[in-house]
Structure formats: C-alpha cells, structure tokens
C-alpha cells in the first residue's frame, strides 16, 4: 500500500514569520496518528497544508505518491473531495439537513446513485450507533451525537485519510471517550487512516502514534506499541511536561 502522506523539508511562512520548519513526516495507510502541541506550535497550519487548504512555502509533499506541487487548484480540490475526510471541533453540520442528509451529502454532491449510498451508509451507521437519530436535525442532537454524525460524513466517501481537528474539543468527557472509542473502532474495522490534531493528551492516548510539535518543528515522536492505553497516556503526559519544562 502506498504511503498516504509524505513530506520532506516542509516549511510554511506567513510573511517573514516561519510557522512550520523542515517537517519530515510519513503517514501510512491504516495508521491512527495524533499531532500534539501547545497553541501556536503550528499544528493547525500543518493540517491545513497537508489537507491542501493552505499552500506550502517550501519543501515537498506527496499525497498518495503524487507531488502536491504538481497539482493545480481544481485538481487539489477534487483530491480533497474524493480522498480526504474532515472532522471539525465545531462539527460543521448543516442545520437544515437531517443527520442522514448530512452524512450522505458528500456522496450526493458526487452524483452517487441512491442504492450505492444506502449500501455504504448501513455499516457506518451501525459502527457509530446512530440509527436512532438519522431523521433528526442537528438542533435536536447532543454534541456527541453531532460529532458522530460528522465522523460518519467524513468516512462515507472511503477517504484515504481523515483529518480530525480537535474532535473532542467541544465535548464533555463521557461523550469524548465514547467518540474516541468509536474512532478507534472505525480505524480497526474499516482500516481508516486518521490524523488527529489535538492539545489534549487524553485524546492523543487513543492513537497508535503521537507526534509532538513545538515552534513549527517536530520535537518528539512516540508509539503506543503493546502498552496499555493508560500507560501510553502517562508517557504522553511525561513527554508533554518534559517539553513544557524545557520551555519554562
């Protein structure tokens, strides 16, 4: 299987201010990775560049082996629409659509046939346990339910990678745990590649691999391996305080 995202010497400046510096990164299919860092560390910018929303200033990025620099704008947009899924902190569900309509929207826009849509919907609905709310509007759902609907929308296109930007940021801890467990399940059942950006160690501990970012550069990277989630969580916290300690 092809590497989903590969970067070499990736850098990004806003004017003369460097935001990302010489990032080398590879995301393999089926991986569930977290990018952690304090605010201002450049993690959101990194995600925007990787998801083609923002332009890079230097270095190189390959998406499924294709150099990003060679892609024209419509091409990049098409790649984003077909090969990437997004989960946002504030859900970004359309208020006027029911859960089902929201989930199917990416397929609707790509002129899928109704039967195919239903065929894809069924297993995802089951995995995320959202049968009961398919006919509801976002205003009638809880935050956790909204985020699960948003996750379903992100993976219904069978994307090569799902970008999750602080997916648990607006949720209470119970809903957050539930969502994270379901993301893990999606990752295991459908082998969905997930790249999560978070400042929350607890959310990061559900991933297989955590990349630490500070001042626009990768400063550390740890793997869960065979250790339990709790142990991994403690290691993340240790690493975080180590990095924070250096700074203070």
């Amino acid at each position, binding site marked *: 299987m092809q590497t989903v995202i590969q970067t070499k010497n990736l850098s990004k400046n806003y004017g003369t201010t460097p935001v990302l510096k010489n990032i080398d990164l590879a995301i393999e299919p089926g991986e569930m990775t977290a990018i952690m860092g304090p605010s201002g560390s450049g993690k959101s910018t990194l995600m925007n560049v990787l998801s083609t929303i923002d332009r890079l200033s230097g270095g190189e990025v390959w998406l499924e082996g294709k150099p990003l620099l060679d892609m024209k704008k419509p091409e990049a947009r098409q790649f984003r629409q077909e090969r990437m899924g*997004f989960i946002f902190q504030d859900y970004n569900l359309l*208020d006027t659509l029911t859960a089902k309509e929201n989930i*199917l929207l990416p397929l*609707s*826009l790509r002129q899928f*046939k109704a039967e195919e849509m239903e065929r894809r919907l069924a297993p995802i609905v089951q995995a995320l346990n959202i049968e009961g709310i398919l006919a509801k509007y976002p*205003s009638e759902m809880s935050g956790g339910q909204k985020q699960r609907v948003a996750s379903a*929308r992100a993976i219904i296109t069978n994307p090569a990678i799902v970008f999750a930007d602080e997916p648990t940021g607006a949720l209470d801890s119970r809903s957050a745990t539930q969502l994270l467990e379901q993301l893990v399940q999606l990752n295991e059942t459908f082998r969905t590649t997930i790249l999560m950006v978070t400042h929350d160690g607890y959310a990061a501990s559900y991933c297989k691999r955590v990349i630490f970012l500070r001042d626009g550069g990768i400063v550390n990277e740890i793997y869960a391996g065979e250790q339990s989630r709790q142990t991994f969580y403690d290691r993340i916290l240790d690493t975080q305080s180590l990095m924070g300690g250096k700074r203070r």
Partner: protein
Amino acid sequence: MTLLELTLRNVKRNFRLYSIYLFSMIAGVIVQYTFSSLMFNADVLEALQNRDIFKAGAAIASVTVFLFIIFFILYANSFFMRQRKKEFGMYLLYGLTEKQVVRMVFYETLVICAASLVTGILLGGMLSKLFGMLLMNMMQYDQPVSLSFPIEAIAATAALFFLLALIISAQSYFMVNRLQLTELFHAKAKAEKPVRVSATLAFVAVLLLVTAFALIYSGKDSAVWQEYAAPSLLVATVGIIGGTYLFFRQFAGWLLQTMGRRKKYHEGNTVLWTSSLRFQIRGNTLNLSFITLFGTAIMMLMCFMTINYKVQFEAVGRNLPNDIAFESRGSETNRMIDELIGGSAHGIRYHLTHKAIVAAPVTEMDVAFDEPDYYTPDLLLVSEAAYNEAVDFRGDDEQVELQGNEAVVLSQGSDFPRMFEDGKTPSFAAKLGTEGETTFSLVEKKDYAYLGWSTNPLESMDIKPAVFVISDEVYDSLSKTADARTFEIYGIEDAKNAEELSRQVHTIVAESPGIYYSSFADVYSKQIEGSSLMLFSSGFLALVATFALASVIYFKQLREATDERLQYAILRKIGVDNRQFKNVIRKQLLFVFLPPLALSILYSWSIIKQYILESVSDFPELPGITWGIIGVYFLVYLLLYVSSTNLYYRIISRGT
C-alpha cells in the same frame, strides 16, 4: 465625542448599508416630487380644461403614492435597524441611554432625509418635464412643458418627508426600546423545526385555486354570476387569497416533503437547495403571498387603466353619438341655435329634425334594458326610417329592417347585446297616451344609441333616453294619435373642441328646465383628461408599488443570505465549489421566485381576459397591450431574480 460626531462616523463606516437605504429614500423623493410638481406646473395647468378635477385627482393620487412610499421606506428602515441591532446594543452596553441612541438615530434620519431631498428634487425636477410632456401627450394636447421648480411642490415634498422622518424615528424608537442586551451574548440558535405540512391542506390549497379559476372562467354571463353575483365574488376572492396563502404554506411544503421522500432524493444537489427552503416556509408564506397578490394588483391596475384610456376615445363617441342634440322648443329657438352653430368656427356637417313617439312602459323595463336605472322612465319610439337616416349620416353600419310590431332595443353599453331567436322574442307592452296598450316583439338588443346621455357643460353624463326602433308602418299608424317629441340633431366639424359652442347652445336650451340636451364636447375633454390622469397616476402608483415589491424581495434575500453564510462556509470546507454554489442558489431562488410570478400572471390575465377584454372585444389591439404590460412586469421580475441570485452569491462568498 459628541453624538453628532458619532453619527457621522456611523454613516461613514456603514456606508454600504446606508447607501441601500439612501437609495430607497431618493427614489421616494423623486416619485413624490415629480408627481406633486406636475400638480403645480403652470404649463400643465394652462393646457387643462378641467383644472379643479385635475387638482383633486392629482391630490388623491399623490396621497396614495405617499402612502406607498411610507410603506416601503418603513420596510427598508426596519431592515436597516435590524442589521444594526448589535451596534445599538454596544452603545447601550457602554452606557449611552436609550434616549441618546434614539436622538442619534433621529439625527441620522434627518441627514439622510435632507440629502435625499436635495438629490431627489433635482432629479425629480428634470423628470417632471419629461413626465409632464408625457401627460400632455396622453391628453393629446400640444403643449410644451418647461423645466420648473414650483415652490409649492418643493415645500409639499419637504413637509411630507419631514413627516416621514418623524414616523421613521418613532419606528426606530420602538425598536431601540425593545432591544434586549442579552441578545448580544447569545448567538442566534436555529432551533425551529420545519413547518408541519399536511397533504389534506395542500389539497385544499389546490381546490381553492381551482374553484376560483372555475368561477372566473365560467364567464360573467353564466348562471353563477347572473344569479349569485355577490357569493360568487366572495368565493372567488377567498379562493384566490386563501388559495395563495395555503399554496405557499402547505402546498410548497408538501411538495418539498414529497421530493424528500423520493428514492433518488439524495442524488445530486437536490438536498442542498431544498433543505433550507423547508425551514423558510414559515417566513416565506406571508412574503410570497404578498408578492403574488401585490403583483396581481399592479398588473390589473395598469391593464385596467390602459384599457380604460384606450377605449375612452371611442367610448365617448358611443355614449354620445350626436355632437349636439336637443329636444326642440319651437321654431324660434331652433332658428337661433341653428344660426349660432352655423356662425361658429365649427361648420355644420348635417342637421336632422326627427320625431319620436312617447310611450309609458307597461312591461318591466329590465326585460329590455340591462340597467334600467340609467334610463328615463318613459319610452321613446323612433321610426326605422329616422333611425337609419341618423346611422347613415354617422357613417356606422347599424341599420335595421323591421316588419309589423317588431322592435329593436337600443341598450348602449350592454354587455350582452343579442339577436332574439324566432319564437323566443320577448314581448314588451307600452301605453300610448289615451290609447290602449301596444305590444312589441323585441327582435334584437343593440349595443348602440340613437340619442346619447343627456349632458350639461358642468356635470357630464346624467341619464339617457330609453329608445325603441319600430317599423315605419306601426310608427305611422301610432303617430296619428300619440304624443310625439321633436329632436334636433347636429353633426359638426371639430366636435372635440366645441366646449364653448356647447355652453352657448346649452344656455338657450336650458331656459326650459328638464329638457333633453346632449353634447359630445361636454364629456370628451373631461373623460380624456380624467382617464389620462388616472392612467398616469396608476403608472406612478405601479412604479412605487414595484419599488415596494422589489424592496421586499431584495431585503428578504439580503437577510436570508446573511443567515446562510455559515452554512455555505461549511459546504466550502467539505469541498463544494463555486459552480455548484451558483447552481444551488439558482435552483433555490427559482423555487421561491417562480410561483409568485406564475400565479400573479395567471390571476391577472384570467380576470382581465374574462371580465374586461370580453366586454371590449371590438378593440383588437387590447389583448396585445395587456400582454405588453404583463411582459414588462415579467421583465422587471426577471431582473429582480437575476440580481437577487447575484446578491445572494456575493454575500455567501464574502463570508468565507
């Protein structure tokens, strides 16, 4: 910083919002000023024959125009105020009192009013020359209108707009007082669910509309309208208004729901353009019903007034077929009048002296006439020969040929002229003097007059003589014993401008009161000036009404697009491109725009076709004119649609 400085800063910063509002105001001033300056324009007044009628008519029209201006400026202002809620809230939060905010808004209003007054009066002054010439042209007067700024008109417009400024400030005052500071801290949550629709009520909507159309198309001479005119009118009106309301509330909702249940609903962008419509139905219902009915009213008004104007030139001739006609009062006065007419600038084309027998009807008059109230209670019987002679001189081809006791009714203005079939001819009995009754067999009811409405130079049409044409043989035998009256009928040159002559002749004739007198000129100038003024005023009214309509549509789009900005930002994030945005917006707005247009064209055309064009079927150019007016409305509406979609697209693109 003083309040005044703050005000000036506001205007500068919110210029876009202000410019929309300012534009509405200027448009209002232009219309108002153009109209009132014509009322006071010396050149226009000089050309008119009936100045007082004109002034009264123009005053009524300008009040109506002003009411419309108030309506649409208040609408614009309420939108403007709502957009600035947040701004006002901040002032209150930082310690300004409500009173100060209101005073600030009042200053702003004054500034805007003053600016639009100056601009509007300058532009309106130029337009008034143009419109004055148009009016003169419509009245067929050859009078140049010079550019002028009558001080009365400026004062009147300024006074009205000061009044408007007060009304606007009152509106703003209520708005500021109702402002809740807590609103500042809560983002508006869209918690409402789509309106509940029922298939039954959607069906009722269609049923109401079908009933109304069935009634309209049954035609005015059908049994329902003849026998039950008032209930039919009520049912048709309720059908149209209620049907329109339910159409937008229930039928549109039902349609969206049905679309949503289709299996293929999720394919393509149908989901996108229908989904927000589901939520808008509640807010759209009144707006769209208003637009539909208002559009219908505008089109009907314009069509009716144009047809009225077009028909007027001919109609006066039909109502008053004789240039001058009066009942003879003896040879002495006849000679005087004959000399008067012969000596005037108007040459005599023909002069007839005819006799008619007077009879008292025994049968009910409504057997013969549609509207007996318009006619004298006694009957005049004219011989076939006399009648045909008059028709020949007029150059018409309405001659008759009668035998025995056959008679033709002259029911000019009748909507239902007809030949009566053999065996179904109504009989009509009349008493002649001391003799017994004579019974006539009515073979035809003609939309034609032998003697027109009686008139006098001051008031126009009063009452008209009821006339039967009878066969020469019966006339000869009856005339031996019955009473008869003699009528002098003149055809003259340039009858349109014979008001002065008519006045002189009338003075002589009117020496014996109650005697029949009828003159074409008495009515012609009044009717033409009157109908021109009516058409002209309706044109203005339609213009302002269209402004009002456009502002309702425009502000509605502005508000909705602003509300939807976030939604479109989300769509952009999940990869929807501009082309698809445009497509979705176009479809969504078409669903909103098309039904009101289609319904209002359908309503106005049906009503005008069935009830107006049918009555004037002998004017072949009128259906074309009607379609022309509908076409103009269609174009204006199309323009609104296109600019609304552009505006919508611009707003939702700006937000991302």
